[in-house]
């Protein structure tokens, strides 16, 4: 069976960034991704990223994706596409990653394995939530920006985090009408500047509201909104009915941790980062030796931090493979931490910083 120094599961921003670091260090690395194109969700991000200018802030997500791909190509990183990983198994030589490729089940052993599997959107249930026309915001985003198809004309967006705000904006850019954005909490979750864009486009934002039900014969036709009190209970008499054909749900992400569970990782529960997260240390290594996590699987944030975590895990894995000395690795990791800490400051970032700090403390303290 084939054996390499590092196998990375997931070719999104975190996985590609990790592969680049390992390849730079001279390591043989294979990235395995289930999609036909690498880049993960980067290619549907058509907005300019925040962050520091030195690290591609102000550049549109898909352009960052293109740059990452070019780097991996230049460095000779092997990327297996259309190759869904279906399991991890124990092996004396490392960790066996089993996947499907070309109609055949195959396996490869990585001395080090990095899981960069990302996250999935949370669902929301209400009467009519299974009607065609109700979908995840990320799903709609892929449709408009990657496949260039409008999933509907008149949209209600649920959730005011950055995903809900950005996808609303992009739906409008693609030619849809976003009739309303509703948020159950009493205030907007995402950045004000993102909210500002859709407000300028005429979309109202209803905080303290939710969808009471969706009506339709065989697909979404009407959406009833209702106001919520401070205990998130519906306030009778506040219902309003809107004629819409699409409902997009953007109520948070859950890390895709299945492979980490299979591998026997220990988990901790941090709601702010999406629920149960594999415990990992400052090198992104889990409680299973040689198994690392990076990006949303290590706590759902956004692409910028995912890339930094990817780098960190890549540098750490390279160090563990003795491709870097401890000193070299220390300096490289310090740079990444500086950037990552910067992304986790301010009123929006501080909570994530604290949550991550709690996670690291869990790793140190055992359980």
């Amino acid at each position, binding site marked *: 069976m084939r054996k390499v120094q590092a196998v990375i599961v997931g070719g999104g921003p975190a996985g590609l960034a990790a592969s680049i670091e390992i390849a730079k260090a001279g390591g043989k690395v294979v990235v395995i991704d289930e999609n036909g194109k690498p880049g993960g969700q980067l290619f549907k991000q058509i907005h300019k990223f925040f962050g520091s200018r030195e690290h591609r802030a102000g550049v549109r997500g898909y352009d960052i994706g293109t740059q990452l791909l070019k780097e991996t190509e230049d460095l000779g990183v092997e990327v297996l596409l259309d190759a869904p990983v279906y399991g991890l198994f124990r092996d004396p030589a490392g960790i066996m990653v089993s996947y499907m490729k070309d109609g055949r089940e195959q396996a490869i052993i990585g001395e080090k394995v990095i899981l960069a599997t990302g996250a999935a959107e949370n669902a929301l249930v209400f009467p009519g939530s299974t009607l065609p026309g109700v979908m995840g915001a990320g799903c709609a985003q892929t449709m408009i920006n990657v496949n260039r198809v409008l999933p509907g004309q008149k949209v209600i967006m649920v959730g005011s985090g950055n995903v809900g705000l950005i996808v609303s904006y992009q739906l409008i850019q693609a030619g849809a009408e976003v009739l309303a954005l509703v948020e159950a909490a009493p205030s907007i979750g995402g950045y004000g500047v993102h909210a500002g864009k859709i407000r300028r486009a005429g979309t109202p934002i209803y905080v303290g509201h939710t969808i009471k039900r969706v009506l339709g014969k065989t697909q979404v036709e009407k959406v009833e909104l209702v106001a919520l009190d401070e205990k998130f209970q519906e306030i009778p008499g506040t219902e309003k009915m809107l004629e819409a054909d699409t409902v997009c749900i953007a109520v948070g992400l859950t890390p895709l941790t299945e492979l980490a569970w299979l591998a026997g990782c220990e988990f901790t529960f941090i709601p702010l980062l999406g629920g149960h997260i594999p415990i990992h240390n400052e090198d992104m290594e889990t409680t299973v030796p040689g198994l690392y996590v990076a990006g949303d699987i290590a706590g759902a944030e956004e692409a910028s931090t995912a890339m930094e975590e990817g780098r960190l895990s890549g540098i750490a894995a390279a160090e563990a493979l003795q491709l870097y000395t401890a000193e070299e690795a220390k300096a490289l990791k310090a740079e990444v931490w500086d950037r990552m800490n910067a992304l986790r*400051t301010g009123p929006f970032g501080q909570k994530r910083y604290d949550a991550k700090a709690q996670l690291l403390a869990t790793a140190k303290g055992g359980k």
Partner: protein
Amino acid sequence: MADGVKITGIPTMEELKATPGLVSDQRFEKSAVAVIECVQEIPCNPCEKACPFGAIIVGSPITNLPVIDEDKCTGCGVCLAQCPGLAIFRVEKNYTDSTSMVEFPFEYLPLPQEGDTVPCGGRNGQYLTEGKVLKVKKTKQMDGTTLVSVEVPKQYFMDVRTICRKGGSK
């Protein structure tokens, strides 16, 4: 009804005035100037690097609100297309005796033509006034973001921020 960017998505005049991104009333009288409507400490600093005159400072940490130096700002407008939040505008209050020029990023189709009369809207997208399109700037460097400047009655220089779209009713 509670107000403010966290509730409505629109910064209030008080919130704007409390930030270091808004120049003094006197400066508005002089010439064109950038108006940075960035009221939340988010990790972002492309505006700082964008300014060729060093008139915008974010510094460290990068969550600092951008500070505008009203003397250094020439009102060139280079920063507008660089802001990922599309939160910087260019305003020339005294464009004529009775009108102001407002320039804003615009990432929609169809684009207006120079000379068009367009319905102009405020931060909530609602119609405020008719405006005349002065310029439609689109360069490769701006990476898809178009800058549209409109001439509007002077009273709206701090209110007009966009062209009304389908969703914004007249």
